[in-house]
């Protein structure tokens, strides 16, 4: 592991922290989820190149496919929230509030 790998793992952790904290918009958390997927893709591709094991390149491609599915479903939920409330503010999601 080089400090480059440490930086990429740090980027993943920063995106994770960004996804878990809510400010006002919901789509900002979806963007941080995309950042997590991207850092995982970069990490897997670097490991596939560093260890000279080309078959590992299958894993980032499949990861990208399922990340695209996940993005689509997340954006569809965002659209349905935006159709109901007008904007995607997080404080609008208060149906379960006691």
């Amino acid at each position, binding site marked *: 592991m080089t400090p480059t790998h440490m930086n990429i793992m740090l980027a993943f952790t920063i995106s994770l922290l960004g996804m878990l904290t809510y400010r006002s918009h919901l789509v900002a958390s979806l963007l941080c989820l995309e950042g997590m997927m*991207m850092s995982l893709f970069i990490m897997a591709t670097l490991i596939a*190149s560093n260890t*000279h094991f080309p078959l590992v*390149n*299958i894993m980032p491609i499949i990861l990208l496919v399922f990340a695209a599915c996940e993005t689509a479903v997340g954006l569809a939920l965002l659209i349905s929230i935006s159709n109901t409330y007008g904007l995607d503010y997080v404080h609008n999601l208060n149906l379960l509030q006691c």
Partner: protein
Amino acid sequence: MAYILFTLSVLLVMGFVGFSSKPSPIYGGLALTVSGVVGCVIVLNCGGGYMGLMMFLVYLGGMMVVFGYTTAMAIEEYPETWGSGLEVLGGLLVGLMMEVMLVLWVLSLNEAVVVVVGFSDTGDWVIFEGEGSGLIRGDSIGAGALYDYGRWLVVVAGWTLFVGVYVVIEIVRGN
């Protein structure tokens, strides 16, 4: 030029801090696009031309475009950028300060940094071209093996995408 890979990974972390500090999502999308470009150049530096271009096409060209016009539907009148408001600016500055101090500390050490894995300072990665077979790139061969050894995986992924589109239609339908 010797530390180009490490510098690019530092720029990647700074780009990630840019959208993790949660500005308005249109600026977050801009920071994610810039981070995607830096990440693609990192992948290219390690000899992964096919994977870098696939990330450009599928990720930046596909998913970021969808994010862009979905965000344009759900945007407010005055989107807050990194300079407006103390929360976003504070998060950005804390993240950048953390990264700069971490980089200075790692570069000043002589032995390895051990968190869970030992991050030894083995320097950057130089592409080693063996003799012969210089036309066979490793990453495109590996991606081509997806359709050979991973036939069933391709079928499952394709079916997942199809069902995903159906799920999206059902969600957006509403009632």
